[in-house]
Protein backbone atom coordinates (compact mmCIF):
# COMPACT_ATOMS: atom_id res chain seq x y z
CA UNK A 1 0.00 0.00 0.00
CA UNK A 2 1.74 3.11 -1.21
CA UNK A 3 0.96 6.76 -1.48
CA UNK A 4 0.74 7.84 -5.06
CA UNK A 5 3.82 9.76 -6.07
CA UNK A 6 3.31 13.28 -7.34
CA UNK A 7 3.85 12.31 -10.97
CA UNK A 8 1.44 9.44 -10.76
CA UNK A 9 -1.15 11.51 -8.96
CA UNK A 10 -0.88 14.00 -11.76
CA UNK A 11 -1.51 11.28 -14.34
CA UNK A 12 -4.55 10.06 -12.44
CA UNK A 13 -5.98 13.53 -12.06
CA UNK A 14 -5.39 14.39 -15.69
CA UNK A 15 -7.30 11.30 -16.68
CA UNK A 16 -10.12 12.02 -14.27
CA UNK A 17 -10.50 15.64 -15.40
CA UNK A 18 -11.31 14.36 -18.86
CA UNK A 19 -14.55 12.98 -17.46
CA UNK A 20 -15.19 15.11 -14.41
CA UNK A 21 -13.78 18.48 -15.30
CA UNK A 22 -14.01 20.82 -12.34
CA UNK A 23 -15.90 18.20 -10.37
CA UNK A 24 -12.56 16.54 -9.65
CA UNK A 25 -12.31 18.74 -6.59
CA UNK A 26 -15.42 17.11 -5.22
CA UNK A 27 -13.60 13.80 -5.04
CA UNK A 28 -10.63 15.27 -3.21
CA UNK A 29 -12.40 17.62 -0.86
CA UNK A 30 -15.30 15.66 0.51
CA UNK A 31 -17.50 16.74 3.37
CA UNK A 32 -18.01 13.20 4.65
CA UNK A 33 -14.41 12.56 5.63
CA UNK A 34 -10.97 12.43 4.10
CA UNK A 35 -10.46 10.29 1.06
CA UNK A 36 -7.14 9.52 -0.47
CA UNK A 37 -5.56 7.71 -3.37
CA UNK A 38 -3.45 4.66 -2.67
CA UNK A 39 -1.46 2.48 -4.98
CA UNK A 40 -0.94 -1.23 -4.76
CA UNK A 41 0.50 -3.44 -7.49
CA UNK A 42 0.06 -0.58 -9.97
CA UNK A 43 -3.66 -0.33 -9.18
CA UNK A 44 -4.99 2.92 -7.84
CA UNK A 45 -7.55 2.77 -5.06
CA UNK A 46 -9.74 5.57 -3.81
CA UNK A 47 -10.20 4.95 -0.11
CA UNK A 48 -11.66 6.75 2.84
CA UNK A 49 -9.30 7.27 5.73
CA UNK A 50 -11.33 5.05 8.01
CA UNK A 51 -11.14 2.06 5.72
CA UNK A 52 -7.46 2.74 5.15
CA UNK A 53 -6.69 2.48 8.85
CA UNK A 54 -8.68 -0.72 9.03
CA UNK A 55 -6.87 -2.14 6.02
CA UNK A 56 -3.50 -1.46 7.58
CA UNK A 57 -4.16 -4.33 9.96
CA UNK A 58 -4.34 -6.77 7.04
CA UNK A 59 -1.12 -8.17 5.75
CA UNK A 60 -0.17 -7.04 2.28
CA UNK A 61 -0.25 -10.60 0.96
CA UNK A 62 -3.79 -11.12 2.14
CA UNK A 63 -5.21 -7.82 1.02
CA UNK A 64 -6.97 -8.22 -2.30
CA UNK A 65 -8.62 -4.85 -2.65
CA UNK A 66 -9.82 -1.91 -0.62
CA UNK A 67 -12.00 1.07 -1.29
CA UNK A 68 -12.71 1.58 -4.96
CA UNK A 69 -10.27 0.57 -7.63
CA UNK A 70 -10.07 3.51 -10.03
CA UNK A 71 -7.80 1.93 -12.55
CA UNK A 72 -4.26 0.83 -13.11
CA UNK A 73 -0.97 2.00 -14.42
CA UNK A 74 0.04 0.17 -17.55
CA UNK A 75 3.51 -1.16 -18.04
CA UNK A 76 4.27 1.84 -20.23
CA UNK A 77 3.35 4.13 -17.36
CA UNK A 78 -0.03 5.39 -18.55
CA UNK A 79 -3.04 5.43 -16.32
CA UNK A 80 -6.11 3.54 -17.45
CA UNK A 81 -9.50 3.83 -15.81
CA UNK A 82 -11.40 0.71 -14.90
CA UNK A 83 -15.13 0.27 -15.01
CA UNK A 84 -15.06 0.12 -11.20
CA UNK A 85 -14.49 3.88 -11.20
CA UNK A 86 -17.92 4.38 -12.74
CA UNK A 87 -19.51 4.78 -9.32
CA UNK A 88 -17.65 8.05 -8.89
CA UNK A 89 -17.56 9.13 -12.51
CA UNK A 90 -21.28 8.86 -13.19
CA UNK A 91 -22.68 11.29 -10.58
CA UNK A 92 -20.02 13.95 -11.23
CA UNK A 93 -19.61 13.64 -14.98
CA UNK A 94 -19.60 16.84 -16.97
CA UNK A 95 -20.70 15.39 -20.26
CA UNK A 96 -23.08 12.50 -20.73
CA UNK A 97 -24.58 10.39 -23.46
CA UNK A 98 -27.85 8.54 -23.18
CA UNK A 99 -28.19 5.41 -25.24
CA UNK A 100 -31.39 4.06 -26.74
CA UNK A 101 -32.56 0.71 -25.33
CA UNK A 102 -31.89 -0.92 -28.70
CA UNK A 103 -28.21 0.05 -28.63
CA UNK A 104 -27.66 -0.73 -24.96
CA UNK A 105 -26.73 -4.31 -25.56
CA UNK A 106 -24.31 -3.43 -28.33
CA UNK A 107 -22.51 -1.05 -26.02
CA UNK A 108 -22.49 -3.50 -23.16
CA UNK A 109 -20.80 -6.04 -25.42
CA UNK A 110 -17.97 -3.63 -25.99
CA UNK A 111 -18.90 -1.88 -29.21
CA UNK A 112 -18.76 1.79 -30.03
CA UNK A 113 -21.94 3.79 -30.05
CA UNK A 114 -23.30 4.62 -33.48
CA UNK A 115 -25.37 7.65 -34.23
CA UNK A 116 -28.43 5.44 -34.54
CA UNK A 117 -28.12 4.38 -30.91
CA UNK A 118 -27.74 7.90 -29.59
CA UNK A 119 -30.66 8.95 -27.41
CA UNK A 120 -29.47 12.18 -25.92
CA UNK A 121 -26.21 14.04 -25.57
CA UNK A 122 -25.09 16.92 -23.40
CA UNK A 123 -25.12 20.21 -25.17
CA UNK A 124 -21.75 21.63 -26.25
CA UNK A 125 -19.84 18.40 -25.92
CA UNK A 126 -16.53 18.89 -27.70
CA UNK A 127 -14.87 16.25 -29.83
CA UNK A 128 -12.72 13.68 -28.05
CA UNK A 129 -14.26 14.53 -24.70
CA UNK A 130 -14.50 11.85 -22.04
CA UNK A 131 -18.15 11.09 -21.40
CA UNK A 132 -20.21 8.78 -19.26
CA UNK A 133 -22.79 6.61 -21.00
CA UNK A 134 -26.23 6.19 -19.49
CA UNK A 135 -29.25 4.15 -20.46
CA UNK A 136 -32.44 6.09 -21.16
CA UNK A 137 -33.65 5.49 -17.59
CA UNK A 138 -30.44 7.03 -16.17
CA UNK A 139 -28.57 3.85 -15.35
CA UNK A 140 -24.85 4.39 -15.87
CA UNK A 141 -23.55 1.83 -18.38
CA UNK A 142 -19.95 2.83 -18.89
CA UNK A 143 -17.77 5.53 -20.28
CA UNK A 144 -16.02 6.46 -23.47
CA UNK A 145 -14.79 9.28 -25.65
CA UNK A 146 -16.80 11.25 -28.15
CA UNK A 147 -15.67 11.00 -31.71
CA UNK A 148 -17.80 13.95 -32.77
CA UNK A 149 -18.89 17.12 -31.09
CA UNK A 150 -22.55 17.66 -30.38
CA UNK A 151 -22.94 19.96 -33.34
CA UNK A 152 -21.35 17.42 -35.66
CA UNK A 153 -23.62 14.69 -34.37
CA UNK A 154 -26.64 16.38 -35.90
CA UNK A 155 -25.29 16.03 -39.39
CA UNK A 156 -23.60 12.67 -38.99
CA UNK A 157 -25.10 9.69 -40.77
CA UNK A 158 -26.80 7.03 -38.66
CA UNK A 159 -24.05 4.38 -38.88
CA UNK A 160 -21.16 6.68 -38.00
CA UNK A 161 -19.58 6.31 -34.58
CA UNK A 162 -20.49 8.96 -32.06
CA UNK A 163 -18.67 7.63 -29.07
CA UNK A 164 -15.70 5.34 -28.74
CA UNK A 165 -16.15 2.61 -26.18
CA UNK A 166 -13.71 2.56 -23.30
CA UNK A 167 -15.38 0.61 -20.51
CA UNK A 168 -18.82 -0.77 -19.78
CA UNK A 169 -20.45 -2.66 -16.96
CA UNK A 170 -20.38 -5.79 -19.08
CA UNK A 171 -16.73 -5.99 -18.14
CA UNK A 172 -17.71 -7.10 -14.67
CA UNK A 173 -18.55 -10.39 -16.37
CA UNK A 174 -16.27 -10.35 -19.39
CA UNK A 175 -13.03 -9.48 -17.64
CA UNK A 176 -13.84 -10.45 -14.15
CA UNK A 177 -10.38 -11.83 -13.43
CA UNK A 178 -8.40 -8.87 -14.73
CA UNK A 179 -10.40 -6.10 -13.12
CA UNK A 180 -8.97 -6.53 -9.65
Amino acid at each position, binding site marked *: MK*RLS*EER*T*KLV*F*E*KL*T*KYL*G*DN*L*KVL*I*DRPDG*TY*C*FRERKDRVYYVS*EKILSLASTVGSDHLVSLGTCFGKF*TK*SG*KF*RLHITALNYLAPHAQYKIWVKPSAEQQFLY*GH*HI*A*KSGLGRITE*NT*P*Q*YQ*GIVVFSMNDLPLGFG*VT*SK*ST*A*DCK*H*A*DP*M*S*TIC*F*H*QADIGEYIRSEDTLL
Partner: protein
Amino acid sequence: MDVVNAILEKNVNSNKSISVHKDLELEIDEGTLLASDYNVFDKENLRSSQDTYLKNLTRDNVQVLINKIWMLQTERVDEAIVGILPKPVFVLPRARSVPKPKPLTKWQQFAKEKGITSKKKNKSKVTWDEELEKWIPKYGYKKAKADEQKEWLVEVNDPTKFTNGEDPFTASKTAKREKQAKNELQRLRNLAKAKNVKLPRVGIPSTEHFRDARQLAAATTIARASTASVGKFQSRLPKEKDAKDIASHVPGIKKKRKEAPLSVVQEKQRNKKLAESILRSKSTILHVDAPVPSTKSAKSSNSGGKKKSSKKEGKGAKKPKGGKGKRDLRSKVGGRKRR
Protein backbone atom coordinates in the same frame (compact mmCIF):
# COMPACT_ATOMS: atom_id res chain seq x y z
CA MET B 1 78.60 -83.73 31.60
CA ASP B 2 75.05 -82.72 32.31
CA VAL B 3 76.06 -79.17 32.69
CA VAL B 4 77.94 -79.22 29.37
CA ASN B 5 74.97 -80.75 27.63
CA ALA B 6 72.63 -78.21 29.06
CA ILE B 7 74.87 -75.39 27.88
CA LEU B 8 75.17 -76.93 24.47
CA GLU B 9 71.43 -77.34 24.27
CA LYS B 10 70.99 -73.72 25.15
CA ASN B 11 73.38 -72.69 22.47
CA VAL B 12 71.64 -74.83 19.91
CA ASN B 13 68.35 -73.25 20.87
CA SER B 14 69.67 -69.71 20.68
CA ASN B 15 71.30 -70.25 17.32
CA LYS B 16 68.37 -71.12 15.18
CA SER B 17 68.92 -72.66 11.83
CA ILE B 18 69.26 -70.46 8.83
CA SER B 19 67.09 -72.66 6.67
CA VAL B 20 63.45 -71.85 7.05
CA HIS B 21 60.62 -73.96 5.79
CA LYS B 22 57.70 -72.21 4.22
CA ASP B 23 54.62 -73.73 2.57
CA LEU B 24 54.61 -70.96 0.05
CA GLU B 25 57.88 -69.46 -1.02
CA LEU B 26 58.31 -65.80 -0.07
CA GLU B 27 58.26 -63.24 -2.81
CA ILE B 28 61.42 -61.27 -2.48
CA ASP B 29 62.46 -58.11 -4.23
CA GLU B 30 66.09 -57.48 -3.38
CA GLY B 31 66.13 -54.06 -5.02
CA THR B 32 63.81 -52.60 -2.41
CA LEU B 33 64.78 -55.17 0.30
CA LEU B 34 61.18 -56.29 0.40
CA ALA B 35 59.88 -59.73 1.34
CA SER B 36 56.18 -60.47 1.06
CA ASP B 37 54.77 -63.49 2.91
CA TYR B 38 51.55 -64.82 1.44
CA ASN B 39 51.25 -67.76 3.87
CA VAL B 40 48.18 -68.09 6.04
CA PHE B 41 48.52 -67.25 9.73
CA ASP B 42 48.32 -70.07 12.23
CA LYS B 43 45.14 -68.98 13.93
CA GLU B 44 45.51 -70.86 17.18
CA ASN B 45 49.01 -69.67 17.83
CA LEU B 46 48.10 -66.14 16.84
CA ARG B 47 45.33 -66.09 19.41
CA SER B 48 47.05 -67.84 22.31
CA SER B 49 50.47 -66.21 22.12
CA GLN B 50 50.35 -63.37 19.69
CA ASP B 51 53.61 -61.62 20.47
CA THR B 52 55.90 -64.62 20.40
CA TYR B 53 54.22 -66.01 17.32
CA LEU B 54 54.61 -62.78 15.35
CA LYS B 55 58.15 -62.35 16.56
CA ASN B 56 59.10 -65.83 15.37
CA LEU B 57 57.35 -65.35 12.07
CA THR B 58 59.11 -62.09 11.43
CA ARG B 59 62.44 -63.58 12.40
CA ASP B 60 61.95 -66.43 9.92
CA ASN B 61 60.98 -64.10 7.12
CA VAL B 62 63.89 -61.78 7.74
CA GLN B 63 66.15 -64.83 7.76
CA VAL B 64 64.90 -65.77 4.29
CA LEU B 65 65.49 -62.23 3.08
CA ILE B 66 68.99 -62.17 4.47
CA ASN B 67 69.74 -65.54 2.90
CA LYS B 68 68.81 -64.01 -0.43
CA ILE B 69 70.96 -60.98 0.18
CA TRP B 70 73.94 -63.21 0.89
CA MET B 71 73.37 -64.84 -2.45
CA LEU B 72 73.81 -61.51 -4.23
CA GLN B 73 76.99 -60.56 -5.96
CA THR B 74 79.36 -59.02 -3.46
CA GLU B 75 82.15 -56.56 -3.67
CA ARG B 76 84.81 -55.46 -1.28
CA VAL B 77 85.05 -51.75 -0.72
CA ASP B 78 87.59 -50.60 1.87
CA GLU B 79 87.51 -53.85 3.81
CA ALA B 80 83.75 -53.94 3.87
CA ILE B 81 81.73 -56.44 1.94
CA VAL B 82 79.00 -54.77 -0.05
CA GLY B 83 76.22 -56.51 -1.87
CA ILE B 84 75.11 -55.04 -5.18
CA LEU B 85 71.36 -54.67 -5.24
CA PRO B 86 69.61 -55.38 -8.51
CA LYS B 87 67.03 -52.97 -9.94
CA PRO B 88 63.86 -52.86 -7.87
CA VAL B 89 60.89 -54.77 -9.27
CA PHE B 90 58.22 -53.70 -6.83
CA VAL B 91 56.63 -50.41 -7.77
CA LEU B 92 56.29 -48.24 -4.70
CA PRO B 93 53.32 -45.88 -4.65
CA ARG B 94 54.06 -42.17 -4.87
CA ALA B 95 54.56 -40.34 -1.65
CA ARG B 96 53.26 -37.10 -3.10
CA SER B 97 50.38 -36.29 -5.41
CA VAL B 98 50.97 -36.19 -9.13
CA PRO B 99 51.89 -32.65 -10.17
CA LYS B 100 49.31 -30.78 -12.15
CA PRO B 101 50.09 -30.09 -15.79
CA LYS B 102 51.56 -26.66 -16.37
CA PRO B 103 49.02 -24.17 -17.62
CA LEU B 104 49.49 -23.49 -21.30
CA THR B 105 50.72 -20.13 -22.44
CA LYS B 106 48.56 -18.10 -24.74
CA TRP B 107 50.53 -19.18 -27.77
CA GLN B 108 50.51 -22.82 -26.73
CA GLN B 109 46.79 -22.72 -26.26
CA PHE B 110 46.32 -21.08 -29.63
CA ALA B 111 48.58 -23.63 -31.29
CA LYS B 112 46.68 -26.44 -29.64
CA GLU B 113 43.35 -25.08 -30.84
CA LYS B 114 44.59 -24.59 -34.37
CA GLY B 115 46.51 -27.83 -34.44
CA ILE B 116 49.85 -26.17 -35.00
CA THR B 117 52.78 -28.41 -34.16
CA SER B 118 56.42 -27.63 -34.56
CA LYS B 119 57.67 -29.85 -37.31
CA LYS B 120 61.22 -30.23 -36.14
CA LYS B 121 61.42 -32.46 -33.13
CA ASN B 122 65.06 -32.24 -32.23
CA LYS B 123 66.00 -28.79 -33.27
CA SER B 124 69.64 -28.04 -32.83
CA LYS B 125 70.52 -25.07 -30.70
CA VAL B 126 73.20 -23.90 -33.02
CA THR B 127 73.26 -22.82 -36.63
CA TRP B 128 76.10 -22.54 -39.05
CA ASP B 129 77.01 -18.97 -39.78
CA GLU B 130 78.66 -18.59 -43.13
CA GLU B 131 79.92 -15.11 -42.52
CA LEU B 132 81.79 -15.99 -39.41
CA GLU B 133 82.27 -19.61 -40.47
CA LYS B 134 81.33 -20.77 -37.03
CA TRP B 135 78.57 -22.60 -35.24
CA ILE B 136 76.52 -19.94 -33.49
CA PRO B 137 73.83 -20.57 -30.89
CA LYS B 138 70.38 -19.41 -31.86
CA TYR B 139 69.90 -17.63 -28.56
CA GLY B 140 71.55 -17.15 -25.23
CA TYR B 141 75.22 -17.54 -24.42
CA LYS B 142 77.59 -16.20 -27.09
CA LYS B 143 74.76 -15.18 -29.40
CA ALA B 144 75.05 -11.46 -28.66
CA LYS B 145 78.80 -11.55 -29.05
CA ALA B 146 78.44 -13.20 -32.44
CA ASP B 147 75.92 -10.57 -33.52
CA GLU B 148 78.29 -7.84 -32.50
CA GLN B 149 81.00 -9.37 -34.60
CA LYS B 150 78.67 -9.81 -37.54
CA GLU B 151 77.22 -6.34 -37.60
CA TRP B 152 80.28 -4.28 -36.99
CA LEU B 153 79.48 -2.33 -40.12
CA VAL B 154 76.00 -1.29 -41.26
CA GLU B 155 75.06 0.42 -44.48
CA VAL B 156 73.33 3.70 -43.69
CA ASN B 157 71.42 4.25 -46.88
CA ASP B 158 69.59 0.97 -46.94
CA PRO B 159 65.98 2.06 -47.45
CA THR B 160 64.57 -1.40 -46.73
CA LYS B 161 65.99 -1.48 -43.22
CA PHE B 162 66.16 2.01 -41.82
CA THR B 163 64.43 5.30 -42.35
CA ASN B 164 66.68 8.10 -43.42
CA GLY B 165 68.63 9.94 -40.81
CA GLU B 166 68.28 7.27 -38.18
CA ASP B 167 71.26 5.81 -36.49
CA PRO B 168 71.10 2.14 -37.50
CA PHE B 169 72.79 0.98 -34.33
CA THR B 170 70.38 2.78 -32.02
CA ALA B 171 67.52 1.63 -34.22
CA SER B 172 68.48 -1.99 -33.86
CA LYS B 173 69.04 -1.46 -30.15
CA THR B 174 65.58 0.02 -29.62
CA ALA B 175 64.05 -2.68 -31.74
CA LYS B 176 65.68 -5.27 -29.56
CA ARG B 177 64.59 -3.51 -26.39
CA GLU B 178 61.05 -3.36 -27.67
CA LYS B 179 61.11 -7.02 -28.50
CA GLN B 180 62.36 -7.82 -25.04
CA ALA B 181 59.70 -5.64 -23.45
CA LYS B 182 57.01 -7.31 -25.49
CA ASN B 183 58.29 -10.70 -24.55
CA GLU B 184 58.39 -9.76 -20.90
CA LEU B 185 54.84 -8.44 -21.09
CA GLN B 186 53.67 -11.65 -22.67
CA ARG B 187 55.49 -13.68 -20.05
CA LEU B 188 53.87 -11.72 -17.26
CA ARG B 189 50.50 -11.98 -18.92
CA ASN B 190 50.86 -15.73 -19.17
CA LEU B 191 51.91 -15.84 -15.54
CA ALA B 192 48.87 -13.79 -14.54
CA LYS B 193 46.63 -16.02 -16.59
CA ALA B 194 48.08 -19.14 -14.97
CA LYS B 195 47.60 -17.69 -11.48
CA ASN B 196 44.17 -16.29 -12.35
CA VAL B 197 45.11 -12.71 -11.59
CA LYS B 198 42.99 -9.95 -13.12
CA LEU B 199 44.98 -7.54 -15.22
CA PRO B 200 44.05 -3.93 -15.84
CA ARG B 201 42.32 -3.39 -19.14
CA VAL B 202 44.26 -2.16 -22.12
CA GLY B 203 42.97 -0.57 -25.29
CA ILE B 204 39.48 0.24 -26.45
CA PRO B 205 36.79 -1.20 -24.22
CA SER B 206 34.47 -3.62 -25.92
CA THR B 207 31.24 -5.37 -25.07
CA GLU B 208 33.30 -7.82 -23.10
CA HIS B 209 34.07 -5.12 -20.58
CA PHE B 210 30.53 -3.87 -20.25
CA ARG B 211 28.21 -6.81 -20.06
CA ASP B 212 25.07 -4.76 -19.63
CA ALA B 213 23.83 -1.22 -20.00
CA ARG B 214 24.08 -0.47 -16.32
CA GLN B 215 27.80 -1.14 -16.27
CA LEU B 216 28.25 1.15 -19.23
CA ALA B 217 26.21 3.85 -17.55
CA ALA B 218 28.31 3.49 -14.43
CA ALA B 219 31.49 3.77 -16.49
CA THR B 220 30.36 6.94 -18.24
CA THR B 221 29.28 8.49 -14.98
CA ILE B 222 32.61 7.77 -13.35
CA ALA B 223 34.47 8.99 -16.42
CA ARG B 224 32.61 12.27 -16.38
CA ALA B 225 33.30 12.82 -12.71
CA SER B 226 36.99 12.04 -13.16
CA THR B 227 38.15 15.56 -13.86
CA ALA B 228 39.80 18.10 -11.58
CA SER B 229 36.49 19.87 -11.19
CA VAL B 230 34.56 16.66 -10.52
CA GLY B 231 32.85 16.82 -13.88
CA LYS B 232 31.25 20.18 -13.23
CA PHE B 233 32.13 21.62 -16.61
CA GLN B 234 31.69 18.43 -18.55
CA SER B 235 29.03 18.59 -21.22
CA ARG B 236 26.30 16.02 -21.30
CA LEU B 237 24.67 14.14 -24.09
CA PRO B 238 20.97 14.86 -24.53
CA LYS B 239 18.92 12.81 -22.06
CA GLU B 240 22.04 11.49 -20.40
CA LYS B 241 21.51 10.62 -16.77
CA ASP B 242 23.80 9.62 -13.97
CA ALA B 243 23.96 5.98 -13.04
CA LYS B 244 21.91 5.48 -9.95
CA ASP B 245 23.56 2.65 -8.07
CA ILE B 246 26.97 4.30 -7.77
CA ALA B 247 25.82 7.70 -6.52
CA SER B 248 27.38 7.10 -3.13
CA HIS B 249 30.81 6.38 -4.61
CA VAL B 250 31.05 9.19 -7.10
CA PRO B 251 31.48 12.73 -5.81
CA GLY B 252 29.41 15.49 -7.30
CA ILE B 253 26.32 13.46 -8.07
CA LYS B 254 23.22 15.03 -6.73
CA LYS B 255 21.40 12.66 -4.51
CA LYS B 256 17.67 13.00 -4.42
CA ARG B 257 16.47 13.04 -0.89
CA LYS B 258 13.54 10.87 -0.15
CA GLU B 259 10.41 12.76 0.69
CA ALA B 260 9.19 12.54 4.22
CA PRO B 261 5.91 10.66 4.40
CA LEU B 262 2.97 13.00 4.25
CA SER B 263 0.13 12.95 6.68
CA VAL B 264 -3.32 12.42 5.27
CA VAL B 265 -4.18 16.09 5.62
CA GLN B 266 -0.95 17.15 3.92
CA GLU B 267 -1.58 14.69 1.16
CA LYS B 268 -5.05 16.09 0.65
CA GLN B 269 -3.60 19.57 0.47
CA ARG B 270 -1.09 18.47 -2.11
CA ASN B 271 -3.76 16.74 -4.16
CA LYS B 272 -5.89 19.85 -4.07
CA LYS B 273 -3.07 21.98 -5.35
CA LEU B 274 -2.28 19.49 -8.04
CA ALA B 275 -5.89 19.26 -9.17
CA GLU B 276 -6.18 23.02 -9.32
CA SER B 277 -3.07 23.37 -11.41
CA ILE B 278 -4.32 20.71 -13.79
CA LEU B 279 -7.73 22.30 -14.06
CA ARG B 280 -6.20 25.69 -14.69
CA SER B 281 -4.16 24.40 -17.60
CA LYS B 282 -7.13 22.38 -18.80
CA SER B 283 -9.65 25.17 -18.71
CA THR B 284 -7.70 27.29 -21.16
CA ILE B 285 -7.92 24.55 -23.74
CA LEU B 286 -11.60 24.02 -23.10
CA HIS B 287 -12.17 27.68 -23.43
CA VAL B 288 -10.71 27.71 -26.92
CA ASP B 289 -13.05 24.93 -27.96
CA ALA B 290 -16.25 26.20 -26.46
CA PRO B 291 -17.41 29.17 -28.48
CA VAL B 292 -17.02 27.60 -31.89
CA PRO B 293 -20.19 28.16 -33.88
CA SER B 294 -19.82 26.38 -37.20
CA THR B 295 -19.22 22.66 -37.46
CA LYS B 296 -16.49 22.72 -40.05
CA SER B 297 -14.27 25.24 -38.36
CA ALA B 298 -14.87 23.49 -35.07
CA LYS B 299 -13.45 20.33 -36.46
CA SER B 300 -10.28 21.95 -37.62
CA SER B 301 -9.75 23.89 -34.42
CA ASN B 302 -10.53 20.84 -32.36
CA SER B 303 -8.09 18.64 -34.10
CA GLY B 304 -5.47 21.34 -33.69
CA GLY B 305 -6.01 22.12 -30.07
CA LYS B 306 -6.91 18.75 -28.63
CA LYS B 307 -4.48 16.53 -30.38
CA LYS B 308 -2.30 16.19 -27.30
CA SER B 309 -5.06 15.11 -24.97
CA SER B 310 -6.49 12.63 -27.42
CA LYS B 311 -3.08 11.08 -27.85
CA LYS B 312 -2.85 10.31 -24.17
CA GLU B 313 -5.98 8.24 -24.12
CA GLY B 314 -4.89 4.69 -24.64
CA LYS B 315 -7.57 2.03 -24.45
CA GLY B 316 -6.45 -1.34 -25.63
CA ALA B 317 -7.53 -2.73 -28.95
CA LYS B 318 -10.26 -0.22 -29.65
CA LYS B 319 -7.99 2.75 -29.61
CA PRO B 320 -9.44 5.78 -31.33
CA LYS B 321 -7.04 6.81 -34.06
CA GLY B 322 -7.31 10.49 -33.24
CA GLY B 323 -7.88 12.43 -36.42
CA LYS B 324 -6.20 9.91 -38.67
CA GLY B 325 -9.45 8.67 -40.15
CA LYS B 326 -10.18 12.09 -41.50
CA ARG B 327 -7.40 11.91 -44.00
CA ASP B 328 -9.55 9.99 -46.42
CA LEU B 329 -11.90 12.64 -47.68
CA ARG B 330 -13.92 10.41 -49.98
CA SER B 331 -15.39 8.08 -47.41
CA LYS B 332 -17.66 9.84 -44.99
CA VAL B 333 -19.11 6.64 -43.67
CA GLY B 334 -18.27 5.93 -40.06
CA GLY B 335 -18.95 2.81 -38.10
CA ARG B 336 -16.69 -0.15 -38.03
CA LYS B 337 -13.11 0.43 -39.01
CA ARG B 338 -12.22 -1.36 -42.20
CA ARG B 339 -8.62 -2.35 -42.46
